[in-house]
C-alpha cells in the first residue's frame, strides 16, 4: 500500500522534473524535452494502473496552477489550449504502455519499446490530433500534418524508454512494478 502510494507520487514528481530539466540534445542535435519520455516510463516501470494514476496526479497539480509542463507552462489555460488533447491522452498513454509490459511476456526491452510506441505515439496522437483539430478549426488530416514533425523525436524517446526500462530492471529488479 505505502509502496504503491510513494511510487505513484514520486513518479508524478519525476514527470515534472523531466519537463523542467534543460532540453536534452540527442545525437542528431535535435533538442527534445524528456517530459513525454517520463509519461512512457510511468507506464513501463510502474505498470498500467499505477502509471496512469501517477500521470493523473501530475496533471491535477498542473491544473491547480503549478508550472510543471515543459517550458514552465501550467494552470487551467493549458487545458483550453491546442495541446489539451495531448494532456488528456497522457494518462491513457501511460496506461497502455504499462499494459503491454505487464501482459506481453516478451524480453523487457522489446515489450517496453512496443508499449511506449503504442501508448506514447498511437494512443497519445489519437487524443492529441483531435484536440488540435478542434482548437484550431482544422480537419483531422490537416491536424495530423501539424503533429508529424514530432514523430521522429517520439520514436527516439521510445527507444530511450526501452533502454532505460531494461537498465532499471537490471539495477533494481524489485522496483519494476509492471513485472512484479
Amino acid at each position, binding site marked *: *500500500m*505505502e*509502496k504503491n*502510494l*510513494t*511510487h*505513484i*507520487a*514520486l*513518479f*508524478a*514528481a*519525476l514527470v*515534472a*522534473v*523531466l519537463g*523542467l*530539466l534543460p532540453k*536534452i*540534445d*540527442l545525437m542528431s542535435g535535435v533538442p527534445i524535452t*524528456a517530459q513525454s*519520455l517520463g509519461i512512457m*516510463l510511468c507506464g513501463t*516501470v510502474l505498470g498500467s494502473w499505477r502509471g496512469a494514476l501517477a500521470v493523473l*496526479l*501530475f496533471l*491535477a*497539480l498542473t*491544473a*491547480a*496552477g*503549478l*508550472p*510543471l509542463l515543459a*517550458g514552465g*507552462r*501550467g*494552470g*487551467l*489555460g*493549458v*487545458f*483550453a*489550449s*491546442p495541446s489539451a488533447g495531448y494532456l488528456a491522452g497522457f494518462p491513457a498513454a501511460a496506461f497502455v504502455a504499462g499494459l503491454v509490459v505487464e501482459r506481453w511476456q516478451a524480453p523487457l526491452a522489446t515489450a517496453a519499446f512496443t508499449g511506449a510506441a503504442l501508448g506514447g505515439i498511437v494512443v497519445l496522437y489519437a487524443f492529441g490530433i483531435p484536440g488540435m483539430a*478542434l*482548437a*484550431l*478549426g*482544422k480537419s483531422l488530416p490537416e491536424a495530423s500534418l*501539424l503533429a508529424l514533425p514530432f514523430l521522429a523525436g517520439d520514436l527516439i524517446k521510445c527507444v*530511450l524508454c526501452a533502454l*532505460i526500462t531494461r*537498465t*532499471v530492471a537490471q*539495477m*533494481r529488479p524489485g*522496483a519494476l512494478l509492471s513485472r512484479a
Partner: protein
Amino acid sequence: MLALTSPLETWAHRLPAGLKMAALCLWTPLLFALHTPAVLTLATLATAALPLSCGLDFALASARLLRPLWPFVLIVALWHLWLADPSGIAIILRLITAVAAANFVTMTTRLSDMIAVITTIARPLAAIGLSPGLLALAIAMVIRFIPVMLFKAEVIAQAFRARSPRRPGWRILVPILLAALDDADAVAEALRARGGAG
C-alpha cells in the same frame, strides 16, 4: 516551486474557487459553440475586461502567460491567409479567449484553494479505495519531492560534467530514475514505520 497565482491581490482573488471553476466550465464550451466573428469579438473583449479590471500590471502578466500560443496563432494565420479564408479570425479569437479565461481563474486562485476543489471533486473516488486523505498525502509528496529531485538531478549532471567533456544528455536519465525509485522505497518504509498510510 512558485504557483502561477498572481501575487497582486484583486477582487477576483476573493471569489470562491469553486464558483470561478464552474463559470469557466460554462464559458469554455460556449466559446466553442460561437462561430460568428462579431459575437466572438464581444466574448474576447468581455474576457479581456477581466484582467484589465485588475490593473495594468496584472493585465501585462496575464498577456505574458499567453505567449506559448503564438506558434499556433501564426500557423492558423498563415494557413488562412494562404487560403484567403476569413474564418481564421474566429479560430484565433476563440483560441486566445479560451486560454485567457482559464489563465484568469488560475491567476486569481491560490494553490491551496485549487487543491481543495480537486480533493472535493475526487471525493467519490473514495468508493474505489482512493480516500481523500491518501490523495492529500500524495499531493503533498509531489510538491515536496519536485525540488528535492531537481536538486538531485543537478548534482548528477554536475558529477557527469566532472567526468566527461560531453554535455550530460540522456545518460543522466537512468541515475535520476534510480534516485526516484530509491526515494520512493525510503519514503514507503518511513510511512510504514509511522503506522502506514490510509
